[in-house]
């Protein structure tokens, strides 16, 4: 059964792949491109662990077909650091112990980056509603919100 040839951009690099019509972008990232940062927690858009940025918007990659990635600009957690310098969100998540098992962390980092790109100075409530699409079962969210608040301060140069 022939696949669909797709050309897209991931973390700034041009990438070609072939996928089945029903294959999701998440399956492509993980099983064909070896980018296992995005995780499948549910496959139905309810947990956010597969979040990536596509053309500037945070989306669940499990609810996007691989074929739809044609010509898009995709950002995954693997692309957040620049060289060996971590993104402020990555640094603050570590400093605040905002992760325990860490399986939801890639999704949270992507969603928090999209949130801060759009709203550089969010209130606690705006952070909590902005991250409501990402489930975490270990932390109770407290330290995640504090890490995002701290990162926002650093990124604003305050």
């Amino acid at each position, binding site marked *: 059964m022939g696949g669909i040839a797709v050309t897209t951009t991931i973390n700034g690099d041009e990438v070609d792949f072939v996928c089945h019509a029903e294959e999701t972008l998440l399956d492509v990232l993980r099983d064909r491109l070896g980018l296992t940062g995005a*995780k499948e927690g549910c496959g*139905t858009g309810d947990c956010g662990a597969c979040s990536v940025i596509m053309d500037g918007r945070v989306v669940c990659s499990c609810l996007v077909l691989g074929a739809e990635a044609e010509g898009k600009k995709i950002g995954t957690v693997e692309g957040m650091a620049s060289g060996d310098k971590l993104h402020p969100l990555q640094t603050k998540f570590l400093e605040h*112990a905002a992760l325990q098992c860490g399986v939801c962390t*890639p999704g949270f980092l992507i969603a928090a980056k999209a949130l801060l790109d759009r709203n550089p100075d969010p209130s606690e409530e705006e952070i*909590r509603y902005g991250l*409501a699409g990402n489930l975490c*079962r270990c932390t*109770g969210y407290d330290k995640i919100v504090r890490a995002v608040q701290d990162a926002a301060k650093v990124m604003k140069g305050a």
Partner: protein
Amino acid sequence: MTLGADFTGQKFKSVGTRPLRPDGVDKVTGRARYGADFNMPGQLVGRVLRSPHAHAKIKKIDTSRAEKLKGVKAVITAADLPDLTGGGDMFDILDNCMARKKAFYDGHAVAAVAAIDAPTAKKALKLIKVDYEVLPHVTDVDEAVKPGAPLLHKHMFTGGVEPKPKKPSNIANRCQYGHGDTEAGFKEADVIIERSYRTEQTHQGYIEPHACVASVSPDGTAEMWVCTQGHFVYRQQCAELLGIDVSKLRVTSSEIGGGFGGKTHIWAEPLALALSRKANRPVKLVMSREEVFRASGPTSATSVDVKLGAKKDGTITAAEATLRYSNGPYAGMWAELGAMTSFACYDLTNVKTVGYEVLVNRPKVAAYRAPSAPMAAFAIESAMDELAQQIGMDPVKFRIKNAAKEGTKSSYGPVYGPIGIGPTLEASLKHPHMKAKLGKNQGRGMACGFWFNFGGQTCTDLNIGVDGTVALAVGTVDVGGSRASLSLVCAEELGIPYEQVKAVVADTSTLGHNDMTDGSRGTFSSSMATIFAARNAIKVLRERAAQMWDISVDDVVWEDGQAKAKGQKHGNLAPLSLKEIAAAAPNTGGPIAGHSEIVADGAGVSFATHICDVEVDPETGATRVVRYTVVQDAGKAVHPSYVEGQYQGGAAQGIGWALNEEYIYGKDGRLQNPGFLDYRIPVCSDLPMIDTQILEIPNPKHPYGVRGVGETSIVPPLAAIANAVSNAVGVRMTHIPMSPPRILAALEKKKAH
């Protein structure tokens, strides 16, 4: 080799600080590899066919058409897993992995395939024809004990009852705990209350579905990469079920995406191994979220009756509880744990608890964070709150008056050593949260909680690198940051900086057997083993230093990470650092290491008191948690950030359980909400910040005073929120979760009369 495990009350340099965890960067950059992130060349995709019926006899399974489908490399049924267990618990695990004669619940595995890709595997499952004879089912814990309820096992007679009952029943076992004479106690009471409570079944809710890659070779050796809370136990059990020598099965624990007890039990792992053996190719088997809900190990649904009697001055004269816990199709000890923990926080002269293990057509129950304790605490702490109210006594003071202390005979038997229930109550009384103002439709509630804690088999290797840095290999899986805490303990005992230690979780071929990371034992037992391994290494380091200085080892002491020569006659000898001793190792006897293989014992229990404010919308019954405080005793917080993380995580799970989480079964016995849309765990915008206060009452049986803290925090929330709702809108909720429809119905009933 134990060199005295007792608490010494020493001052700490590293322990108690908050460094970055050693495995953190991989986790924030997406490099960390979890169960489903691992692949082996030539691997096949494994998929499981599951029963759509709640209770059905399996008459015949025709796999012929599936086996013929192009791209299918192996198809297995229970016939491919001959019973090597000899009965008992292991047989139940085998039967649960794949149904042998009967499917006992919606989702019970009946067959499995391994194929070259997912579409082929999916098609193959559809070609397997199973001939079921559907039987009547029962999924409710109270219905299952009624006469005439459908029986899961024809030959199940209730254990723990003398004389042995004649008729079979769905009650697998009865247990009893307590002391004194409750009848007499109730006669002395001025006030008696009797209430019945129910809690629905909930799931641990870890975000990572179960996943493994298994590879079995015809020469009897095998390898498995799996997300688990205990790879040694997984190896032991999988080897037994598959008939493989334990030492020939190497199991590597991947990073684990949450467990909370749900990954202390094998589910599809033996199927992946069996498929790989049959196909002679590695098999990757990853559960879907729906499969995790239908066919892993949720906790029990419960039905608990409580009777309490007390004098006007607040002294409890008698306390009784009867606890029915659903076990799924196989007998466990879940009600027994409930019966043991029910009144554990209290100093009672007359107490009696009776537990019944009830079998139902639901998935096999597994541990979920302080298993069985939250449900018992919900019933007891709600009743205690109501009793205090009827006597007109402040709920915290009522508990302080009856709290267990050192020397109290616990309701589950033994006398307590030094314990923290009193201090957590005193601390909560003084906490600013207790005096904060409440708004409209808001209420405050509190509750206490307890969990055992235990040690168990642990071994640790500590190797001094050629450059003097330290590699620490532990066998307890790190779910919530224990590699950071164990590195701190190792650095403390060796007297070197934290950054000089690198802790890893070793696979089963590099360390001796380690028990599961459960029962909050991870940090407790591995820190003890790490301390002894470090002390053994120090012994070797002192011998090597003595050799280097050519003096007697008795004149060498280890201080601040260095070997020092004692006594004037050695005055001129400069201390030797770890780096220097390591550099000379080739000449002084070879690699330097310290090992420790122990049964860590003397685990100290961990008590907590929680305070919760809620706001209830009287027109819709919606409840919102507006403030939450956890006060818990940690003995010694090795890495305070991760101790706080355990307090906050446990509370959040408790809040979800209290308000929204439940398994919903239809009349057809099928699970209606196997997904994160309708199995509603708390989202970020549901919760306030969760404030924590760590108390440190040292555990005398641990060198640093450490207690296990991982589980207690889930015990109080159910009752704390129920009591807060009652304080806010004046209705006593007796059914968990307190979903809006249930609260609204209770409010309507209250308005009606």
